[in-house]
């Protein structure tokens, strides 16, 4: 009897807990209207950064934060360092609890995913409140949601085509799809003994499959493709999309042969795939690399004498709307909607994103500052960065504004995975993406 009563008690509590009202997902409405504490009261402004160099963090702690704290008596700035590995789970916790860092570090495509949970910062960072905003380049668009600023971009990191001019057979750079496929065949070598690549003509993002969704989007944009139609439905049933998928397959087969050949990928090595190994003096295996600058050799490497930097030119022979493209990624700092210190967060951002600060922040990582007027000094002194910055401003296309980006990546990766095994034809791949993305968008 006692056991039964006890079980009844537990079940009742389960029932009550199941029926209980859910944890609020946002700070109560009053919280946003509560006046900011007076300057003299102790306040901690929390900032969450992902994978920045020790030099950057040290500079923020020694220069920016003390200056900010001096200007805001009673305010302490606390920087927490996280990693891109596992960030999503951590951020989910912040938003679920409606509590966490005031300023968080996001990537380009995350504006659509997190947008509803980010603060509208127009009143603090818009042109009327902060004239400096006009100095930011196209990366600023990635820091907006529904046309409203949610934070500020730190840098722009476009994807270029880097090629080893001393290794390449044939003219560089290939400027249409047919030339690329011929280039891939002429510049790839397979070791018969190990049935593996020893040289790969083009290494895009994910060298093994050569069909990563980000690489697909870059190629697609270079044909003049638009991700969405006028009615907001996806455009994977367009001729440009089909040509892009066919190009993925053609390049993969020109490099690895048919799927049944089961050729192994390049061995994992040290340093950039287009660099030269200092110990063995052997090439690391790639002739061209379609990737961000950080995947290329360090700027002081001697191999740069033989490296060209180009955009991806599309296929003007078959698609007249083709245009050279570098797909621009960027990191940005956003202010969470649950933050009770939005004005302080805005002030800190203004201080950390002045012309000089934005320059300094990126100098420690040799990246291109998001502010146009911050692109001086190391940017123009380095021939590589100068060229990259020029290409970015001329041909940059933002990797942003992708609705349900996380779902689209899974949908595309699954379909493109079946393309490289020749399980699906390019037309079937696109049809599958179109169908599943429509469902994901709820259309």
């Amino acid at each position: 009897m006692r056991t039964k009563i006890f079980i009844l008690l537990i079940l009742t509590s389960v029932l009550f807990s199941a029926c209980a009202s859910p944890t609020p997902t946002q700070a109560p409405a009053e919280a946003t209207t509560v006046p900011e504490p007076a300057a003299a009261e102790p306040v901690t402004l929390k900032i969450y950064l992902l994978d920045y160099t020790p030099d950057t963090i040290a500079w923020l702690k020694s220069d920016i934060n003390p200056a900010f704290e001096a200007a805001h008596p009673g305010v302490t700035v606390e920087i927490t360092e996280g990693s891109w590995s596992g960030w999503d789970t951590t951020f989910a916790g912040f938003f679920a609890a409606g509590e966490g860092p005031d300023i968080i570090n996001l990537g380009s495509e995350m504006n659509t995913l997190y947008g509803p949970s980010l603060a509208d910062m127009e009143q603090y960072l818009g042109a009327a409140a902060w004239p400096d905003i006009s100095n930011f380049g196209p990366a600023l668009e990635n820091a907006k949601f529904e046309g409203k600023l949610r934070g500020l971009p730190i840098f722009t990191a476009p994807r270029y085509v880097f090629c080893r001019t001393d290794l390449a057979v044939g003219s560089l750079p290939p400027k249409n799809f047919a030339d690329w496929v011929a280039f891939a065949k002429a510049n790839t070598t397979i070791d018969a003994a190990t049935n593996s690549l020893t040289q790969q003509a083009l290494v895009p993002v994910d060298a093994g499959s050569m069909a990563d969704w980000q690489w697909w989007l870059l190629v697609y944009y270079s044909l003049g493709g638009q991700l969405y139609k006028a009615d907001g439905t996806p455009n994977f049933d367009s001729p440009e999309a089909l040509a892009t998928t066919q190009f993925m397959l053609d390049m993969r087969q020109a490099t690895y042969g048919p799927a049944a050949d089961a050729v192994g990928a390049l061995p994992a090595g040290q340093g950039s795939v287009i660099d030269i190994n200092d110990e063995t003096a052997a090439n690391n295996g790639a002739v061209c690399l379609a990737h961000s600058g950080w995947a290329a050799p360090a700027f002081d490497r001697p191999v740069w004498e033989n490296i060209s930097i180009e955009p991806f030119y599309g296929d003007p022979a078959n698609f007249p709307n083709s245009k050279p493209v570098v797909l621009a990624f960027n990191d940005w700092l956003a202010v969470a909607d649950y933050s009770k210190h939005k004005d302080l967060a805005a002030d800190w951002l203004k201080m950390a994103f002045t012309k000089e600060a934005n320059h300094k922040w990126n100098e420690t990582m040799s990246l291109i500052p998001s502010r146009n007027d911050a692109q001086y000094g190391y940017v123009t002194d380095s021939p590589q960065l100068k060229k990259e910055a020029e290409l970015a401003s001329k041909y940059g296309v933002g990797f942003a504004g992708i609705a349900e980006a996380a779902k689209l990546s899974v949908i595309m990766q699954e379909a493109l995975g079946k393309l490289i095994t020749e399980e699906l034809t390019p037309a079937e791949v696109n049809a599958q993406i179109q169908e599943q993305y429509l469902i994901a968008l709820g259309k």
Partner: protein
Amino acid sequence: MTLNPYFEVLFTAVLTIGFIIVTSLGLGQLARFIARQVGASKRHQENTFTGYAFAAPWIVGFLIFVIVPLGYSFYWSFTDYRVTENTPPNWIGLDNYARLITNDPGFRSSIVNTLYLTAVGLPLMIAVALFLAVLLNQKTRGERVFRMAFYLPVILGFNTAVLLAWRLMLNTGTGIINQLIRALSTAFPPISYLNRGIIFVQELISALFLGISSGKFTLLNRVWEAGFPAANRVPMWVESPLWTKMSVVLLMIWGCGSMMLIFLSGLNNIPRELHDAADVDGANNWQHFWKISFPLLTPYVFYNLIVGLIACLQIFEPIYVLYRDSQPLVPSTISMVYYLWQASFRNFEIGYGSAISWVILLIIMAVTAIQFMIQKRWVNYDLY
């Protein structure tokens, strides 16, 4: 006024201790009250109070950290709760479950992938663990070192260094595993045929499972048409959708130390007299194992099967560490729990993720119940 964070921590700790004391006494009182109501003696009432008061910290913890989240998860599974939407959950009834069962090819694929890891990986894992246990049960020099060595992966787990080591070892061209296969195949031609035969069969099985998950068997036909692999073929481990799941199986086998320990304890429990009697009858080692050891080990096999089955159906870590980068290969290997993680922490669809977790629970319960029903036919409890 904003409090000093250290004071907040201290305050929270004191509150927690106070909460534990109050709930312990409260639960004890409640238990005593119930005992009184059912007519228990004064002494029995006091014992009831003491028992429940001491058990209360665990019971309250269980209620707060297990039952309450379980309740929330169940409730959310009927809502459209999405963390990033900044809106409260809306009740949508059975929509999540309907979408999951009728309109989610990704979840179907994850079930098929998990089925492969369970049907192929688990028997291999048990077989290797049993084999190692039998080997390490011999009285030889350094047996403890070997036991420790084979148990070490369980302690190491799947950390970054382990991941990196495995990725290097599994490299098709230069990885040590394929280098060994190549060296052995070159030195001993029969091993080359065995290797290619295993590759052919494995790729056929994998293509079959991929076909089941996608509903198209193009890949199976292609593998069949390609025929017996060429002499220079090696496994494509983390490079081909045909090998992604087998790479995970390798990691599973690598971590079979716990099963091995269970088998070792089982082997030690078998009475020596039985083997002595078999020796008198002239039994060889093979007969010793199959006629005495294995039948008496079946309860241990059953235990490992149940625990391993649940672990396989919940497999996440090896896939996460090997394929985190979300390459086009990932969908060929994602498990049900990986899919749950994707829905919950990449798409932030907590409502949908909760529904997935409840469906996984039902699947695990059903499979475990079936195992318990079947065990009467093959598990030998004569010795116990």
